[in-house]
């Protein structure tokens, strides 16, 4: 069994999605448990793969028993095993937490919702584990199409936001496909490891340069790097809350993983970081993106829109960190993929809890929420502190590596941008906390205050949320181990 974990990981949700789609109308009650079982299986496989990688090192799985590059191979190494565990856990936790919200937001079509949800997850897991550049494109599209559909059925202007997302996403994916085509043209293969071994002979070729720039630009589009972020704020804020807390942690982070994979294991790191001016330009773009997104976040009036811009800034963190090209910064970027997924999940679950209980998440509605929904606020506060970067939450430690890496590279622009964004995040979150903390009091000493009804979310929603919040601290405390045992091995030894 354990030899087949890589395939099990992807096929379990895929099969469950098919079965759910068939029984969706007749047996809607069966769908959520089935989905939960499938994702548990995925999480189990992901964890098993991580254990195996830690014990034996990277391994691969040849689908159809065709050795690469003839067939498609799944390559499991430290990098994707780590990200996989995080993503699988995020998907499962979100599934469990949002069950009530799904029932009320998607009445009558829960079954189809869960099928699309699982397809989205299967695609994401596949992207993370595949070792074939074209296979990645197919999986990317399955993720995107299910994502478009899930976003499209949300708040009022969701369809418009989703169509915009379709346009940007398709351009991004097409550019990636074109880049892969260029690589195929010049190397004759689609297998990532094979391309990696052939490319050093072709450094001088303009085709390689074009392939690199095109594919990376496509990915930047998909990950909403400023200024290619246009689709994200609307798509995330118009999506229904269970969808938001699924795609927000998964989509952009998966794309960043692909960027890391491409930059380190498809294009040789030497080419990625030193051969072109590209890396330097991207770091500055990321720094500018962090600053601009943070400033834009300040002007939003609802929690979810504010968070959408915070997310864009976080994308800038990871992109900037990765393209600095030194070990510490790349460590930070990879660590932040995991941490940001957890933080984003946590914060959007809290937002989901507000929208589910209060039917709104504009700042004005949040008045007195520390009293009305204390536990949800605890979750939001933990996630907020993590996004600000307060120890011992995990957000601090990835920022630690990112800033450390920027210092190593003497890139003061990025250091300043990261610090600035932390400060802005502090302002953003404390503004929310302040609103939630102060209640419309007439007189502070008055014994009988206007009663705000207690509106805490049900325990089935709260428990996983609190677990996630605790996980933020746990991840933070585990940073040392994650870095020494996993991320160090995930970065090629040539990078110092």
């Amino acid at each position, binding site marked *: 069994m354990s030899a*087949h974990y890589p*395939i099990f990981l992807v*096929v379990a949700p*895929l*099969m469950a999605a*098919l*079965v759910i*789609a*068939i029984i*969706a*109308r007749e047996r809607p009650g069966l769908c959520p448990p089935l989905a939960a079982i499938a994702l548990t299986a995925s999480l189990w496989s992901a964890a098993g793969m991580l254990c195996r990688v830690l014990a034996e090192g990277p391994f691969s*799985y*040849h*689908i*159809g*028993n*065709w050795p690469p*590059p*003839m*067939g*498609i191979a799944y390559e499991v190494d430290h990098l994707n095993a780590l990200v996989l565990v995080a993503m699988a856990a995020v998907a499962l936790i979100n599934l469990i937490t949002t069950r009530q919200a799904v029932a009320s937001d998607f009445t*009558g*079509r829960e079954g*189809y*919702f869960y*099928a*699309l949800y699982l*397809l989205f997850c*299967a*695609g994401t897991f596949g992207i993370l584990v595949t070792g*074939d550049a*074209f*296979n990645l494109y*197919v*999986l990317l599209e*399955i993720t995107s*199409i*299910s994502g*478009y*559909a*899930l976003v499209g*059925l949300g708040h009022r202007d969701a*369809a418009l936001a989703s169509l915009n997302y379709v346009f940007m996403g398709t351009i991004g994916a097409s550019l990636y496909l074109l880049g892969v085509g*260029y690589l*195929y*043209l*010049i*190397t*004759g*293969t*689609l297998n990532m490891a094979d391309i990696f071994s*052939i490319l050093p002979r072709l450094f001088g*070729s*303009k*085709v390689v*340069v*074009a*392939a690199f*720039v*095109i594919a990376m630009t496509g990915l930047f589009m998909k990950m909403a790097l400023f200024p290619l972020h246009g689709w994200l704020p609307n798509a995330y804020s118009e999506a229904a809350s269970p969808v938001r807390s699924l795609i927000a942690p998964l989509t952009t982070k998966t794309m960043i993983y692909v960027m890391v994979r491409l930059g380190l294991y498809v294009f040789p790191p030497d080419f990625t970081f030193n051969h072109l001016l590209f890396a330097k330009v991207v770091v500055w773009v990321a720094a500018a993106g962090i600053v601009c997104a943070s400033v834009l976040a300040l002007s939003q009036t609802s929690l979810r829109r504010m968070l959408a811009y915070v997310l864009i800034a976080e994308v800038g963190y990871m992109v900037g960190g990765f393209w600095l090209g030194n070990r510490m910064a790349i460590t930070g970027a990879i660590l932040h993929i995991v941490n940001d997924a957890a933080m984003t999940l946590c914060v959007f679950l809290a937002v989901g809890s507000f929208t589910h209980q209060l039917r709104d998440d504009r700042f004005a509605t949040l008045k007195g929420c520390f009293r009305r929904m204390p536990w949800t606020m605890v979750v939001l506060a933990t996630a907020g502190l993590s996004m600000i970067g307060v120890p011992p939450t995990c957000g601090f430690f990835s920022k630690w590596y990112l800033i450390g890496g920027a210092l190593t590279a003497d890139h003061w622009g990025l250091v300043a941008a990261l610090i600035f964004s932390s400060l802005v995040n502090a302002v953003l979150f404390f503004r929310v906390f302040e609103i939630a903390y102060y209640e419309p009091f007439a007189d502070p000493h008055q014994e009988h205050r206007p009663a705000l009804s207690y509106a805490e979310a049900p325990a089935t929603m709260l428990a996983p949320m609190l677990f996630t919040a605790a996980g933020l601290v746990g991840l933070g405390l585990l940073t040392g181990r994650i870095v020494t045992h996993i991320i160090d091995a995930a970065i090629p030894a040539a990078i110092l």
Partner: protein
Amino acid sequence: MKRLGLLAVILFGALLVYGTTDFPDWGDPSSPAATHLSPYYIQHSLHDTAVPNIVTAVLADYRGYDTMFETAVIFTAGLACLFLLRVFITPKETEASGLYRHRATGITLRIGQGGRLPLGTREFERIDSQWVPYDLIIRTACSLVLPFIQLFALYVVAHGHHSPGGGFQGGVIFGAALILFAISHNLRTTLKAMPEKRTNILTGTGVLIYVGTGVLCLLLGGQFLDYAALAGLLGVDPVMARSHGILIVEIGVAIAVMAVMVSLYYNLASAGHMDEGL
């Protein structure tokens, strides 16, 4: 905005031109793409899978996993349209708003929201609100052509091993046949022949055949989608098992594609109401 867009397009075009100057010439048989990996397929696929059509062999076997997800993509698209457009509130049989024509006299009635049919539904038939004249020639011609199209679709699926064709192509042709039926008659007639529920089940089943074959290989001790593992079950040698395996998954693909085509058409044409359209 437009200027910025123009600039972006020009820059992008320039980048493509820049890359293209280093391309090998078009049709050059010694380019890397022609010499690195593809010779293996050309020289070994017949030997490995007993399928003369190399494209089919690569599609369904060497890169069968891609194809599985390709089927899943089309399945997702069908599901997505269903999810986005389908209106799940179905009016009761008796409360039907819309236009009705008395079969005998040709008088047309409009029934408003919550209304009922005056007599039993036998005497009235529902017609589309944007009424298209009844055209005997088109209907008859299409009905005549349809079986041949469907037969051809089956041929394309079955003969994918030896000639251009396969599950996708066959599935699309089959789906097109049904859509032609829907266009030449109307949506309700098609829905009677091919109910929505059936397309939904077929969509899932088609992909499930593909994935299930993969899982079956896994259960029989091979790798996922390693059709050679089916040899024992099919009673042939591993190479022929691959050939048969390819056929099995192609059938699955054909079913899925056909059902999705029809389902997409249903949803898009009727805006999710499943009563009338086009």
